[in-house]
């Protein structure tokens, strides 16, 4: 199968959906001529023009608010917030408007929008451009949360998100845009709420998403050498979360490690761990382990940045602690 970049997979998803449905449009800072800060809207402006690929002012709250307004009146906007760190400026619109409208208005409104943004560390750009704030989003009822780890998933999940009638927060990872992977040419969709078993195994379940999926996969390869067979599960969407696939795996392995690049306190991993406790306490043979970022603002200096987020060795150590 042909291989393309993660960022090009995103562009393809948007292009195909824009061709399929003229209500779909893109807006955000530098998405037009510039093609998006990470190149994830490249070529769309040339193909669709400035009506459907709109550069906006640096007005995060207005970008999200305008997307909501367009969505509830019949359009299907894709709003790009350049870095997830900047949603801090748009939280009111996202949390109080996008997430709540349908519920508050008795189910009479739908908010079919996608808020595309990126997150994560790895480029030495410090505490205002490196965070993993997905736990914030996951907390709020009314929002869907998608975090693809491969080009294939990126395309299929973005297409599903665009077609979905709910507000979807779609978080890409800054270190994955340049990653290549197999993507079919044919139209395909990956439904939200379906986890993917990225590697089969029998001794321990590792749940990891976004860039940390790849860290977990490397750790799993290394663990094979020590005769530890890890099953690696990528939830792909954190909300809705496919807890069944995780439970089925834990039933087989009896052990669970969750890897996340978010701050440890109040992490997505905490929620997954608790769900497994609630629904499968009897399945567990060992305490659940979390491998998360240290609770510090992500520092710029490369040595500190590396130390702040999980790495392969952290995952291996966590697995060994409960497997030996």
């Amino acid at each position, binding site marked *: 199968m042909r291989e393309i970049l993660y960022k090009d997979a995103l562009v393809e998803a948007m292009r195909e959906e824009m061709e399929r449905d003229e209500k779909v449009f893109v807006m955000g800072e530098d998405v037009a*001529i510039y093609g998006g800060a990470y190149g994830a809207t490249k070529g769309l402006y040339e193909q669709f023009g400035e009506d459907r690929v709109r550069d906006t*002012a640096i007005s995060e709250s207005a970008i999200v608010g305008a997307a909501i307004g367009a969505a509830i009146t019949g359009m299907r906007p894709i709003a790009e917030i350049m870095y997830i760190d900047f949603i801090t400026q748009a939280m009111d619109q996202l949390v109080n408007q996008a997430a709540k409208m349908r519920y508050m208005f008795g189910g009479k409104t739908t908010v079919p929008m996608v808020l595309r943004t990126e997150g994560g560390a790895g480029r030495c750009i410090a*505490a205002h*451009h490196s965070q993993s704030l997905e736990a914030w989003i996951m907390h709020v009822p009314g929002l869907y949360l998608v975090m693809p780890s491969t080009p294939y998933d990126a395309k299929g999940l973005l297409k599903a998100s665009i077609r979905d009638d709910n507000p979807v927060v779609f978080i890409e990872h800054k270190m994955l845009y340049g990653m290549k992977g197999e993507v079919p040419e044919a139209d395909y969709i990956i439904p939200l709420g379906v986890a993917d078993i990225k590697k089969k195994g029998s001794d321990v379940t590792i749940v990891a998403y976004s860039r940390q999926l790849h860290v977990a996969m490397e750790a799993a390869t290394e663990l094979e050498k020590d005769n530890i067979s890890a099953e690696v599960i990528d939830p792909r969407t954190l909300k809705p979360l496919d807890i069944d696939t995780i439970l089925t795996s834990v039933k087989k392995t009896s052990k669970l490690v969750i890897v996340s690049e978010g701050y440890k306190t109040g992490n997505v991993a905490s929620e997954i761990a608790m769900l497994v406790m609630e629904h499968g306490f009897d399945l567990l043979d060992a305490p659940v382990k979390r491998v998360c970022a240290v609770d510090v603002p992500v520092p*710029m200096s*490369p040595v500190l940045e590396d130390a702040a987020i999980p790495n392969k060795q952290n995952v291996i150590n966590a697995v060994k602690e409960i497997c030996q």
Partner: protein
Amino acid sequence: MKESKEELIGYLRKMMEIRLFEEKVMELLARNVIKGASHLYAGEEAVAVGACSAIKPDDYITSTHRGHGHCLAKGGKLPEMMAELCGKATGYCKGRGGSMHIADVTAGNLGATGIVCSNVPVAVGAALSVKMRKTSQVVLCFFGDGASNNGVFHESLNMAAVWKLPVVFVCENNLYGMSVAASRCSAVQDMADKAKAYDIPSMICDGMDVLAVRETIKKAVERARKGDGPTLVECKTYRYFGHSRSDPRAYRTKEEEKEWRNKCPIKQFSKKLVDNKIFTEQEIAQIEKQAEEDVESAEKFAVESPYPNVKELRDDIYAPSPTELVNGGAIR
């Protein structure tokens, strides 16, 4: 010119330092000695130097993602700045902030931000504190044309006006916010006009002319010190490099860039000094050489400095609290 010869030469020298620092940063980014992002200030030197020359050492500034120039103009030192950009332990922020978060708090630079416009309400707060503490300080708040489209800009101006705070809003209008021309994302041409909605007086000046900036900011600072409240000063300027390192600059023309290069604040000011027989060309060349050497030695200092110790990763997140307040420091 009413400034003394020393003052004039000081402005020139600072502008040269900023320019050479930025050119060096460009080189170090290309060589991957500096990692991460850096937004270069070259072309805009007259704004930082002119504005900061109009305030006193104990006055405050708040800075932006394009903050190297502000830091230097407010008294920052080249070696500590370069070390910070390289992520070294000897940098102003111990390598944690890097280019985008450069701060030199003891010199009154309250810090740069990576979140566009998030420094503007902070400046208002600093000015409120000045007023409440009844000192005679003022606050200069730097931001871009792009930032003035952000909601918090409007909230901040309103608050500063209502409370008549001693803050000068300095808009560095370099015509673009990343790739988007100001004319494509702002409904008004002159950002200065935005002050009208809040009954704040505004002025526009040539941001390529250090003395023009200085004169204009001085007037605004006087108003602030007298207790007459905030002013918005818009400086028309231009950034010579791309927005950040990977910017192909497809959104502007070579001709436009050339036109603004011809207005180079350093060349213009040097010429003025020579034409007015205040300095000879040789003397100016001498100053430039000195600045070059200083930048070189800052580079050397930064490169030779150690990286931070990973053991200090969790330091400074919280201020130490008395144990009776936080359960024996259990917060960690």
